[in-house]
């Protein structure tokens, strides 16, 4: 797989690009730019500013139009400036529906400047039977940047066979060195020992830049080689995923963020 962000302007022609930019901390209220590009009929995530102050902003990504259907290409670009803190929330989960042989794309590119913080509690992403989704997440972290990102993949709605999703994940530090690179091609064949076992729900909380005590929240905790932690849990239902990793990492991100403001 490639470690380059997969978002490109050519994708905008057939889908929608959502951009959220938070400027560097300076004097006064932090600058927040939100925009959407693409045809008005294309499904998109509409960014809505909920709150902001001198150093932080809170933005909701509201689904606009029915999604996710065959041919949809949803792209999200997030940039957080030096020292600033952005919290992204999703009002609801996303369901990728039967695509009848078609395919959809969901790509996220995150760029964090030095000392920037992003806190994003993603809601469940459900891949219904017959859905086929290419998902990519590409993160670039500046020096001292912090990230806490929650992702929950659900293969099939309740009582349904899994759909298909190819996911790729990469996080690079400010020197371009890789911190975490992963791909997962999931479908019915992934419900085997070693991959997902008989669990259709894969939960992940990925954090970088947080100073977490080594004994905190040991279950499913994968401490990465060059800093960062990935908590991973397998479950039969999304509500069975433990909440502690997110509680711990979001609290640590916030306290880390306030530290940098002093």
């Amino acid at each position, binding site marked *: *797989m*490639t*470690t380059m962000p997969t978002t490109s302007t050519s994708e905008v022609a057939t889908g929608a690009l959502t951009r959220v930019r938070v400027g560097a901390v300076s004097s006064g209220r932090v600058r927040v730019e939100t925009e959407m590009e693409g045809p008005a009929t294309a499904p998109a995530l509409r960014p809505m500013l909920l709150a902001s102050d001198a150093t932080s902003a809170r933005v909701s990504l509201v689904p606009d139009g029915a999604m996710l259907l065959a041919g949809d290409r949803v792209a999200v670009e997030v940039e957080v400036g030096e020292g600033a803190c952005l919290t992204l929330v999703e009002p609801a989960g996303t369901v990728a529906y039967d695509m009848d042989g078609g395919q959809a794309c969901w790509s996220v590119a995150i760029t964090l400047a030095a000392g920037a913080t992003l806190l994003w509690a993603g809601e469940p992403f459900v891949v219904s039977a017959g859905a086929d989704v290419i998902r990519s997440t590409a993160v670039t972290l500046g020096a001292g940047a912090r990230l806490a990102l929650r992702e929950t993949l659900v293969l099939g709605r309740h009582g349904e066979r899994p759909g298909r999703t190819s996911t*790729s994940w990469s*996080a690079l530090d400010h020197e371009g*060195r*890789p*911190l*975490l*690179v*992963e*791909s*997962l*091609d999931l479908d019915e064949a992934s419900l*085997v*020992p*070693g*991959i*997902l*076992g008989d*669990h259709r729900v*894969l939960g992940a909380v990925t954090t970088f830049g947080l100073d977490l005590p080594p004994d905190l929240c*040991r279950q*499913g*905790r*994968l*401490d*990465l*080689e*060059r800093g960062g932690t*990935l908590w*991973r849990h*397998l479950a039969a239902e999304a509500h069975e995923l433990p909440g502690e990793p997110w509680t711990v990492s979001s609290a640590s991100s916030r306290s880390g963020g306030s530290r940098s403001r002093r």
Partner: protein
Amino acid sequence: MADDLMLMLLADARLPVAGHTQSGQLEAAVRSGLTAAQVSVLMRSRLGSVARVEAGTAVVALHRLRAGLPLAPVVDAWAARTPAAPMRETSHTLARALLRLVRRLFPDSPHVADAAGVEGVCRPIVLAAAAAAGGISPASLGRLVAYDDLQTVASAALKLLPLDPLDATSWVHDLLPAADRLATEVAALTSPDEIPAPSAPQLDLWALAHAATTRRLFSA
């Protein structure tokens, strides 16, 4: 000399490189309920994930050794694709054991010296050094990694589950075409960025669980 004799030597289970201490997460899997009938499924899961990362890492390291390029980016790429610390630690331990042997077999090889000098050296990089010193092709190196992975689990299965050894060997045999495909797919890789990164969430979780237990037959 044809490279297959060197390959046989390196693939031999009797090699003094601590291979018998490894179960490829099978012990943890059995502890969590894996049955004898599912062992070959686990072997296939490994071929599609950790063995693929290891084979890709080895092949890219071999290219860089022969081209005189630094190995540190290969270690970075491998570590970023190996999120479970116990798996990384196991690879470091096996790398040290293999390095002792490879140094003895190829005392004058600059490739072996290069691998020995890499900070955080992992097993596929030492295997690459052995391949560079022993005249083994990238495709053969990929087959070696895949085959060794299959045999590691199959032979561990005989100690963990009541099995007919003929069954275990037939599982390996049946997965040889998949091992061959894996090797073919990674043979032409040259850049650390290109190393496949397939994740196996349950293997990672088993590796964590196994490292946390004291009652075990295999170290990993």
